[in-house]
């Protein structure tokens, strides 16, 4: 523990960076759930797939090639999943959905092993963002600042789309009451597909962004799944604001827990999850309806 301001600035930036990475993952998952009432546990696997694509392409196209193409590749995979599994299971109830997508996780883990092998892969931070930047009296890795900025940018764009555009209004109507939205002439099926694919692309983007910071391993999708689920349960299923709030809470509790209460830190977030479930089972900022 220290009274040095720089230390707390550093930890706050760490917390923000973790929050933004989780936000990229959870926002897709939560909107898919809010709109389609579909529990996609394989969301983490899409993130891992994005990381592997980015790591593979980094060798030939450089980091930015992977950064741009990984979300597209994951979106394409999402489209395939949508037409083969997701659409037919939409009305099958949560148990069937959970079982199918849980099974998909293991298929994905072994598929990545077959293609990319067991050894973890690492890629370098893009040259543009190498090194540290002096900020508020601390030296912070530029790449991590980029993650924070990217998360905020995605948040801004999504907020604009959801609140200021027609498609955003349609999505909000669909989240509130999809049958009524369909009666009003909205093509709910097509909207579902669009939201699902965009959610997948964001997971792929998160994977590509995480690849230079974390090592790319076959089980990275499984490791990120629990934090992502905690984020959307705390925040409230189906809401953008909930995903933001949940990500920030997770990032700050995780980071400052490790600093202030190191022995308790692994339990803190679960204790908070339990407290939220007992007092506000619908989450802190649930979607309306």
């Amino acid at each position, binding site marked *: 523990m*220290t009274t*040095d301001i720089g*230390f707390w600035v*550093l*930890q706050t930036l*760490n*917390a923000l*960076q*973790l929050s933004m990475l989780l936000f990229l993952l959870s926002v897709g998952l939560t909107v898919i759930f809010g709109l389609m009432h579909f529990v996609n546990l394989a969301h983490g696997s899409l993130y891992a797939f994005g990381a592997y694509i980015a790591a593979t392409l980094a060798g030939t196209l450089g980091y930015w090639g992977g950064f741009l193409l990984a979300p597209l590749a994951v979106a394409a995979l999402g489209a395939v999943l949508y037409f083969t599994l997701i659409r037919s299971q939409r009305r099958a109830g949560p148990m069937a959905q959970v079982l199918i997508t849980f099974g998909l996780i293991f298929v994905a883990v072994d598929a990545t*092993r077959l293609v990319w*092998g*067991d*050894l*973890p*892969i*690492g890629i*370098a*931070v893009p040259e543009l963002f190498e*090194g*540290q930047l002096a900020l508020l009296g601390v*030296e*912070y*890795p530029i*790449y*991590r600042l980029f993650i924070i900025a990217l998360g905020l940018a995605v948040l801004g764009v999504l907020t604009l789309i959801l609140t200021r555009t027609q498609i955003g209004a349609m999505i909000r109507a669909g989240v509130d009451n999809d049958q009524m939205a369909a009666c009003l002439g909205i093509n709910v099926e097509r909207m579902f597909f669009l939201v699902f694919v965009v959610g997948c692309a964001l997971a792929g983007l998160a994977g590509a962004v995480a690849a*230079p*910071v*974390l*090592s790319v*391993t*076959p*089980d*990275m999708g499984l*490791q*990120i799944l629990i934090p992502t689920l905690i984020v959307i349960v705390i925040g409230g299923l189906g809401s953008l604001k909930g995903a933001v709030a949940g990500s920030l809470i997770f990032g700050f509790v*995780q*980071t*400052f827990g*490790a*600093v202030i209460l*190191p022995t308790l*830190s*692994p339990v803190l977030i679960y204790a908070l999850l339990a407290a939220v479930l007992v007092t506000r089972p619908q989450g802190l900022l649930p979607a309306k309806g």
Partner: protein
Amino acid sequence: MRTTIRAALAGLVTSTCMLSAAYAEDIKGGLLLPYSGVYAALGQDIDDAFALGLETFGADSGATFEIVREDDEVKPPVGLAKTKKLILQDEVDVMVGVVSSGVLGAIRDTVDGAGVPLIVANAGNDEATGEACSPYITRISFSNSQINRPMGQWLVDQGVKKVFTIAPDYAAGRQMIDAFTTAFTAAGGEVVDQEWPAFQKTQDFGPYLANAKASGADAVYVFFAGGEAISFVKQYDSFGLKAEMPLYGSGFLTSQLYVEAEGPAAEGVITALHYVPTLDNPENAAFVEAFKAKTGRIPSEYAVQGYDSARALVEAVKAGATDRETLAAALPKVAVTGPRGELRIDPATNNIVQPIHVYETVAGPEGLTQKVLATLPAEADPVNGCAMPAATN
């Protein structure tokens, strides 16, 4: 992997050994390794090098070796079931392998009870050659504390007085770091603070690195392996810590297997391990060349463990061992000079006694390589509660 294969080399060995057929023996060995799961790459390294070891040394033993391979999937219950299959159904004379300490813990009583000698080719849990030691279990790899203990005195000798330690919160992490800190404080060093991030749940070490930075320590000493090692080394560098606080640790951190993925971030990191492929001795030169020719890869510490396991088995057979009982008696008496240097087995614990090499990761003409800074003398582990009973059955 479930198929029983008679090693192709067995035929070769048989044909070349016809002359000494008078005392030719058929030794049946069971290789229990993870061929799937998170440690599959480690299992493959051990398997390849074990086969190479039998090819290299098997011929002069006059015996033929038949190897049955089983996949423990890094799961203790699976490892136990496969062990029972190897012992009861295949009736192997000797077992070799075990990467995970969890699997070793699960099969220990079965192996000990059945009186089947087991050559441990990786699992480093201190207890396996401490409280839970067995006359049938001989460890040819390393123990967690053995690798880290010599670094305590060495770091103090280098002028490092205050360290900050970070390691994952599980048995191996604790044993590695505790062995180091005990030796380090005994030598006059001070441990400023310690962090134990949750094992396999922590990918972002940013918060711990900020703590280390604020701690005022001279250096950071860590243990991480696999994917966590890659993440840690890269993040340590990205925070610009390497310049102000040198990074030291257990040598798995910058293992040959992972160093390419770590990239330039690993340069300058100084760690200790029982083997690096750049050790300068004729045995190692021959081993590296043969392993490269066979697999196209540079051997890792896991590979040398597989190679030396085969060597130990051959030496035991050469000493006249022919079955479970005589192999169990002969294995702890094996002493050889191999790629790692002089090896012997401590009769008090059946753990290997070997020199520990301090190395720095440096950039070489063909990517990152290891520069050996010091070779610390071999020292037997304390008995750690091991009361070695005589082998009876």
